């Protein structure tokens, strides 16, 4: 499910997946598995670790911001000179896991800016919903 029609400056994709969080976590954090569904990489689940995601069309510069095993993973996502932050959230459900990916576009110049910006940016995006609905 994507919510771009209402969430203008962030992309949210959410899906219930019939596997436990532990298994999905492996796919999100083990380099050889990440390569299978996303891109070639030198990922490590360590806060501050810088890594690249590489594809035919170019590379994405990333840095790990938050790691909470089986629950949440967050990294910066820099491509085409544009900085954003990708945050994965895993929530166990009766049938498996609700996997949520949110990509928020702004420049996390520093960790503090990232933490401060999260709330502010989301408020901003919320406020823009009406406005952008009127654009189309």
């Amino acid at each position, binding site marked *: 499910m994507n919510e*771009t029609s209402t969430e203008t400056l962030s992309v949210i994709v959410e899906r219930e997946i019939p596997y436990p969080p532990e298994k999905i976590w492996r796919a999100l954090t083990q380099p050889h598995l990440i390569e299978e*569904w996303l891109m070639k990489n030198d990922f490590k689940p360590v806060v501050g670790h810088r890594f690249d995601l590489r594809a035919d069309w170019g590379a994405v510069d990333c840095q790990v911001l938050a790691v909470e095993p089986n629950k949440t993973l967050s990294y910066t996502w820099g491509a085409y000179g544009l900085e954003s932050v990708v945050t994965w959230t895993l929530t166990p459900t009766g049938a498996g896991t609700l996997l949520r990916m949110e990509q928020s576009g702004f420049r996390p110049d520093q960790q503090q800016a990232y933490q401060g910006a999260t709330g502010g940016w989301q408020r901003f995006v919320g*406020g823009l919903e009406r406005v952008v609905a009127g654009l189309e």
Partner: protein
Amino acid sequence: MHTTPDTLFKTLADPTRRAIFERLTRDGEQTVRILTDRAGVSQPAVSKHLRILKQAGLVRDRHEGRQTHYSAQLGALAPLIDWTSQMAGFWQSRFDHLEDLLKRMDQ
């Protein structure tokens, strides 16, 4: 005016600047003085933010006597909307690949 998503993101990344833009989208046209009263920063700082917003095409100014009135230009947000639809498509397909991988991991 054509503005790249990069410029728009940089312009809107500053919380004070974002608040000024947000106020203009919510309350309509405003003078620098009214914006300054509510921004909690000095008038030169507000003017500087407005100048940067104007460069990004996000606000337009209108002079009336000694006052300058600023209004939000919502059309300037279009590149961000393009960016989010592209990324949403990208992530939807990655979720599909991820689900395929999880199925294979069973075997």
